[in-house]
């Protein structure tokens, strides 16, 4: 579905990603874990074409997308739910969702939009209740749901989520992860970037560990969850304490 080969990217004089290679197979939930500033957001923005890759190659659904503009990549079926939600604050919830369906109109699939809208309202009943409210007046969790719903309106093959749990209450976080799982079960491939590595790995099929712009580890979700380095660095396990108990 998606393949990155030796991708370099950055801003100005700053190089953030160094020779990153990874792939996402159809139907998978792949997660990228890493500390703040490791380059997780830059990685997703590079795939979406918001940041230009300086080297390497990006292939999505069999097409080379390295040099394509964002709107073309989205039209191919690769949607990003950006960090910090980025809803259209001064516009109604419903308008936000219809804007998400822009590529569907462009594909001439206008008749599917109404059904997709019902599907999103089904996933997020709260959005149906707030359909006429301005997006900027929603709570953080509701805005995150709207951002995900907006991306789904494009009928993507792959949806990339950037820190969907950031700044949300634990119960809402649980909801969001449940929704991500459901989206995957309904047939959309997911690439998930999360600080909350444990929750992400629990729903993921595979994962990559990104450290200062490089992929340092990869494996199935179970492998990563049981890896001692990952546990120490990203899952908050206090291994020293465990060792003391053992001896």
């Amino acid at each position, binding site marked *: 579905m998606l393949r990155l080969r030796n991708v370099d990217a950055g801003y100005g004089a700053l190089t953030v990603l160094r020779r990153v290679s990874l792939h996402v197979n159809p139907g998978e939930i792949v997660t990228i874990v890493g500390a703040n500033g490791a380059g997780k957001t830059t990685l997703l923005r590079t795939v979406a*074409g918001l940041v230009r890759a300086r080297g390497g190659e990006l292939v999505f659904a069999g097409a080379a997308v390295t040099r394509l503009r964002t*709107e073309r990549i989205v039209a191919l079926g690769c949607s990003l739910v950006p960090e910090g939600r980025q809803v*259209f604050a*001064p*516009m109604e919830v419903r308008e936000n969702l219809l*804007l998400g369906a822009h590529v569907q109109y*462009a594909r001439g699939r206008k008749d599917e939009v109404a059904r997709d809208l019902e599907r999103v309202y089904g996933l997020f009943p709260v959005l149906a209740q707030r359909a006429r409210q301005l997006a900027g007046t929603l709570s953080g969790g509701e805005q995150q749901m709207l951002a995900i719903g907006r991306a789904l309106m*494009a009928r993507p093959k792959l949806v990339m989520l950037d820190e969907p749990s950031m700044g949300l209450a634990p119960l809402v976080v649980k909801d969001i992860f449940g929704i991500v799982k459901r989206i995957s079960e309904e047939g959309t491939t997911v690439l998930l970037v999360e600080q909350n590595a444990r929750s992400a790995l629990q729903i993921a099929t595979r994962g990559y560990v990104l450290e200062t712009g490089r992929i340092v580890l990869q494996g199935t979700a179970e492998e990563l969850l049981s890896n001692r380095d990952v546990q120490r660095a990203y899952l908050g396990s206090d291994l020293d304490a465990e060792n003391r108990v053992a001896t």
Partner: protein
Amino acid sequence: MQLELVLQYLVAGLTYGTIYAVVGVGFNIIYNTTGIINFAQGEFVMLGGMTAVTLHRFVPLPLAIAGAVAVTMAAGALVEATCIRWLEKPSVLRMIIITIGVSILIRELALVSWGESVRALPYFTGNEVSSLTLGGVHVSPQVLWSLATCVLIVVFLWFFFQHTSLGRQMRACAANRDAAALCGIATKNLVTLSFVLSAGIGALAGCVVSPITYTAYNIGTGLAIKGFTVAILGGLGSSMGAVGAGFLVGVLEAFSVSLMPAAYKDAISVAVLLAILFLRPSGLFGSGAAARLKTA
């Protein structure tokens, strides 16, 4: 002051207010999609009026106006394509300086091609002396043409932005450009469209008011300052605010003539601009809450 005189000043103020309002609205359209103030906005008004006068030598008035609007729209697209489009994330200051440069360029080109003479289109109906009497006030029919055009432009823009897919895309682009691109919207084309749109309405207004206010190669700068005042006064980004502020500034100027020498007329709008910038930068009609939502 007698009531008739007050009303007479009011009508004069509304006439000038029309063009200020339309220039202010033009500023807003481009500001909303790009975040820049296009100081060549006044030149679009000039270009519209001057082109229409030239075309009117060969074709009937309605055709001349339609032609002038089309030519100015093309000029707007050309300005965007040559000066704005290829810049990758330029700073606001750089964009402003570019538009000032463009306005100087257009003005000089107009001087070379049309010379310094002052021109005007003929009155659409009647002539210089014909007037309608409304409530004891003499109103030139051209004033009614101007007001009607202004209303038409505002209604058209309202419908366009609220009820068409393209208008909705432009509002999305204004609210969050990256997010608009992530919806698959071709944001660069919308920036071009915003230049075309504001050039078009500027040109239309330039044609309609030219019989009363006259037009010459150098009217753009003054209009840009007035239009900018109006856009700020009405709350940057708000078209309805700009229309209200346009009429307010026009009326203020008209009444100032009765109290002060006419030479101070332009100083009034600059004084208003400074006062607003010092006292209420969000504008008279701009609400703080809306501004926060915008930047959120």
